[in-house]
């Protein structure tokens, strides 16, 4: 091998830390002190967090009234699709034993409604909803166009199946006078939804903006009449509509409907007393064996946290501590054994 000198040198691999696998490195070692202290700390954190969450979940006041069967006559009426135009309302009185302090939120809650079906989720047109092209109904599956070919607006199964009960909360001020509890129907959506994802098409007024489109078959009113009192809240940017369009992950879900406007009698929240829900019963849940209820709830620092999270945190914390104690016991026992039997170590 009589190669030139330079070539010989070039064949010698570089003496770099990377190539020689000598990169400076931290060797991760699960030492007893590290693991045990980690376990103790985690356990403490989880336990603490769990207790805090449990306490705050306890402090939440919540009223849930399932009105599927309370308004049985309406439910019966809605079972037949032909009656969809007929109005039906019912009133549900209830007693609030304690004041609901602070912000109070009103939700509607549906049981057994699958907003998470694959084809259901896809059945919407984002380009239409953002006001870009209201005639783009391509992705809306069975709800693209009416039988005479007019594009549906808003198209798709989600929009078509929108929750359309109207729920009004009345407060029994004294024996006979019921006053309407002031509720805000705005500020119940994300900013991005309201200003980016949902936009009315540009035009002089709403009706003309939606010209040439038809309402979804299941709707009573066209999109631009969703909120007759407030044209700002009508069309695609109607917040009830936006809330509905944000599909739920599970078949049982609650969606924010209104929030308490804290004025007059209600600056502190909802005072204890007699209340009544006045419900225009339009949404036919019995047809798919679903149920619906209305929920009033307050919040805590972490939102409307449920018992579940607190419970799991507490259990996790407890188990972690238990585990760390037993691990420590095992470790100490082994250390003792090692002291008596030093041979246990590496044999060389």
């Amino acid at each position, binding site marked *: *091998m009589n*190669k030139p000198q330079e070539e010989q040198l070039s*064949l*010698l*691999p570089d003496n770099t830390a990377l*190539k*020689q*696998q000598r*990169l*400076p490195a*931290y*060797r*991760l*070692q*699960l030492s*007893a002190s590290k*693991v045990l202290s980690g*376990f103790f700390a*985690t356990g403490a954190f989880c336990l603490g967090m769990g207790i805090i*969450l449990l306490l705050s979940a306890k402090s939440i006041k919540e009223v849930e009234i399932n009105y599927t069967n309370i308004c049985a006559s309406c439910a019966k009426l809605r079972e037949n699709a032909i009656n969809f135009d007929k109005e039906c309302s019912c009133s549900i009185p209830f007693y609030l034993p304690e004041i609901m302090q602070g*912000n109070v*939120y009103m939700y509607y809650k549906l049981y057994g409604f*699958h*907003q*998470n*079906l*694959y084809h259901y*989720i896809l059945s919407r047109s*984002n380009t239409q909803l*953002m006001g870009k092209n209201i005639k783009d109904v391509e992705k809306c599956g*069975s*709800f693209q166009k009416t039988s005479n070919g007019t594009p549906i607006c808003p198209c798709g199964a989600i929009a078509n199946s929108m929750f359309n009960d109207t729920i009004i909360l009345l407060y029994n001020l004294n024996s006979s006078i019921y006053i309407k509890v002031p509720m805000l129907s705005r500020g119940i*959506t994300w*900013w991005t*939804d309201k200003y*980016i*994802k949902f936009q009315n098409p540009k035009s002089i007024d709403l009706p003309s903006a939606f010209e040439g489109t038809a309402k979804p078959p299941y709707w009573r009113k066209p999109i631009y009449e969703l909120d007759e009192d407030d044209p700002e809240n009508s069309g695609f940017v109607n917040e009830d509509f936006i*809330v509905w369009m944000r599909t739920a*992950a*599970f*078949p049982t*879900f*609650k969606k*924010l409907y209104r*929030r308490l406007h804290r004025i007059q009698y209600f600056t502190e929240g909802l005072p204890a007393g007699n209340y009544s829900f006045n419900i225009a019963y339009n949404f036919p849940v019995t*047809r*798919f*064996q679903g149920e619906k209820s209305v929920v009033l*709830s307050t919040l805590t620092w*972490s*939102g*409307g946290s*449920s018992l*579940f*999270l607190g419970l*799991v945190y507490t259990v*996790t914390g407890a188990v972690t501590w238990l*585990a760390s104690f037993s*691990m420590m016991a095992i470790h100490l026992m082994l250390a003792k054994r090692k002291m008596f039997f030093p041979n246990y170590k*590496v044999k060389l």
Partner: protein
Amino acid sequence: MFCSKKKPLEVKRIVKANDREYNEKFQYADNRIHTSKYNILTFLPINLFEQFQRVANAYFLFLLILQLIPEISSLTWFTTIVPLVLVITMTAVKDATDDYFRYKSDKQVNNRQSEVLIDSKLQIEKWMNVKVGDIIKLENNQFVAADLLLLSSSEPYGLCYIETAELDGETNLKVRHALSVTSELGEDIRRLANFDGPDTKLMQNSGKTKFKRTSIDRLMNTLVLWIFGFLICLGIILAIGNSIWENQVGTQFRSFLFWNKEEKNLVFSGFLTFWSYIIILNTVVPISLYVSVEVIRLGHSYFINWDQKMYYSQKATPAAARTTTLNEELGQIEYVFSDKTGTLTQNIMTFKKCSINGRIYGEEHDDLGQKTDITKKKKPVDFSVNPQVDKTFQFFDHSLMESIKLGDSKVHEFLRLLALCHTVMSEENSAGQLIYQVQSPDEGALVTAARNFGFIFKSRTPETITIEELGTLVTYQLLAFLDFNNVRKRMSVIVRNPEGQIKLYSKGADTILFEKLHLSNEDLLALTSDHISEFAGEGLRTLAIAYRDLDDKYFNEWNKMLEDANAATDEREERIAGLYEEIERDLMLLGATAVEDKLQEGVIETVLSLSLANIKIWVLTGDKQETAINIGYACNMLTDDMNEVFIIAGNTAMEVREELRKAKENLFGQNRSSSNGHIVPEKKQQLELDSIVEETVTGDYALVINGHSLAHALESDVKNDLLELACLCKTVVCCRVTPLQKAQVVELVKKHRNAVTLAIGDGANDVSMIKCAHIGIGISGQEGLQAVLASDYSFAQFRYLQRLLLVHGRWSYFRMCKFLCYFFYKNFAFTLVHFWFGFFCGFSAQTVYDQWFITLFNIVYTSLPVLAMGIFDQDVSDRNSMDFPQLYKPGQLNLLFNKRRFFICMAHGIYTSLALFFIPYGAFYRDTGEDGQHVADYQSFAVTMATSLVIVVSVQIALDTSYWTVINHVFIWGSVATYFSILFTMHSNVMFGVFPNQFPFVGNARNSLTQKCIWLVILLTTVVSVMPVLAFRFLKVDLFPTLSDQIRQRQKAQRKARPLHSRRPQTRRSSSRRSGYAFAHQEGYGELITSGKNMRAKNPPPTSGLEKTLSNSTSWIENFCKKTTDTMSSFNQNKTVKL
């Protein structure tokens, strides 16, 4: 004759020499070596075709097609196509580079120059353009790149010496004769190209290169099949679920929704759901698995190439991973099959010691009279007074030189014998230096030693030998040459010195020669015998040296009888042998020589270390039994501590069977008696480990088997006996084996032991074994290239095997196993949430995550950290890997990744997916955000799950990574950072504005990830997923620490003050007595010498000038054409080139 597979058996070849037109009719292959696969045009179609032949790629293509069916599609097209295209591009680039290098090396070989006779003129032609039938002129030291027929040579009698280093790595010269009819044709070597290109014996013998797969590969394929079965089960469960759901809820719900679709058939709906879920759940076997595995292996291969500690500076040869797909198998080797010459030994013989008249020369004695090993520090004997010295020769004992100067007659006689009794040919080169052409390196060493001590062999004729004795030329008459053969194990010459005395000089195996001594030698014999034992104990090859004075009368009588015998027609051989016996007796012992068959550096340490790592080393050599055993002892594979060394040398099947049976009986018998004795605790542990694999016996045994016996033993019914016996032995030496037998032995072990095998060798005779073994290693940096070309790994020195296996192999295996465990875990955790979600979304094949997340999860968010771990992770340092060879055992037992491990990973993944899904589910079920809004919307749920998943798997990889380099830091933190930046980008207003349909998650990240409760959920998920694993691992290390764990703990302690590690002392075995005759010798040289066939009439300097050749080239060509065209028609080229 060999034939190619397609054509019918080629019985004969018709070739007209130097007639290209005629030869073209037969369409013989051209001489181009063509190993590259593609050219620029065919690359794309062929490569794509090949890639889609791989099951994995075809499977993903199938999925892609499924996805295009709208009824089934549950993922958008890009989720599959992006990874698929990425994977295929990467593989294609790799294939293209590989092929380019093949093309380059082909080109180099093809463009070597040769001189070919075209149009009656010698023309320079590239070897690739040489055609069958061409006549080629070769000069001294030229490469030959075809099978050639020797027509004639410049040497007398048409002899030529060829070196077959490129074929078998042996550098000693082999003689080939030209046919007598063609031999008078000219002077330089001229040859007729007979077989070309793919038809050459070598290419045909090389066999089809089998595509090697590692056992991890096979396991992985099995697992992928299992996973696929699992996938189908999940699909079926979900499909049934779908049918039931549709029946009970779906139809009502649909009618409520005014879903105008035609009434669905329930079974058909289930069927579609099945396929939809197959698409969604296919990420359990992500396409990136195979690519990642390749990338990791490639990285490991580069580490091998880059390793300075495997770089051999003397030959400027770095180690090379020629195959990049087998690395982790290097960590699982159980059997090493090693060639001897050139691999374990350097094939260099050096004269080390001698015993003359009862005194040992060659040992150093220090002041205290203690023997010390000869070291380089001592000053060698200065031979410069002698002008003819061979400067490479070194001797450290000055007393021999003194004895020569003092005129010790025995010493003189000893050296004279060495200078006279041999088959070496001498030659003077242009500088006037003596060059010895040696037929066996042993003899070369002896003659060179004599030369340096002043007894210089100068030249020989058939009748005389001329030597220079301490400055005076003396010519001896060579009266008889008693050649070597295997039975005699000795050779003698009978010479008459100028004074007229007739002497017989003999050298040979001690066992043989000692029986021939005169009775007066008894004392000397005892002493010399001790010395020989001592030499042999040091692993030296010994020869006894003796002489006999003959009187004229006796010799003449004997000589007459010999002539009669030679003339006899019947029983000639026997009569001659008898006569030889007759004269070689009453010898006077002179002493003994000890030649070192130089081991490669570090062989002993490597062998020791590998056997500590429970790797069994088998030596497969073409050498003789004695040589092989000798080397076995020299490199500590055989020791005197061994309970028994079984030698199987039977010549018939019956004998072999009987010998095997006896050996086995012996082995089990001894075992039974010794097993109730002492058992070392360590051994016991090892026994437990091994007990599943094989029956174990206590005590060390070794098996030596020779080629003849092996041929019988490899027959089907004895095969198992052989295997069983061999596997119980610590060392197995197979000698005199053919290349094919080497492969058969490897195949036997490979097939029946189910063990990972490695073959290492340097010559073409090792090629078949290298190709057959799971891993083939070629010793590079030597002349021969064939072994390297066939090998998977190559390096210059046997000792690098230790580092390759114990460091690189072990790490590769360790890393690959960790990688696979993590990878399967990760993808189970990632994918199975879809299954859980199926129960909540009406089995409608709705994915949990955003489509983009599914696309990017495996290739962007989680690929790099695990790759970094797979490439860089180290449990213990390389130094500790070398110092504790026991660390290698988990690989052999396949402990780090097997089916059980896989199920653990799978369970881990399933557990994580449960935590990932059900904790957010439970929390979101009733929860609302801080602003009172619901958090349980699908998109927020998807983002929460995705974020939890990325964090959980990142924490997991952080725990799995035991060697945190900068790169790991960058990749792990970088991946998490990348996830968040991509998440926020994709959820940004701008992206939605431009592509509203592709990025519908606008604003989700910022709205969800600012909620406290979502982070609480993510945190809880992480804790619940990781803590049990952490606890489990901690307890495992604490309760059942593996050796690796223990060393890691020590390593930590050591780092502050590292004590100098004392290397294991070199253990040399104590002396033992063996027959040491070990000539790499062939019979028949005596005749060549006495007939003078291999000698030139005069001694012309070797001609190499072109002009001279050209001037007489026409004449020999004419002669040649006249004489030989018809005799050339068919040839057994075995005569031309013998492998």
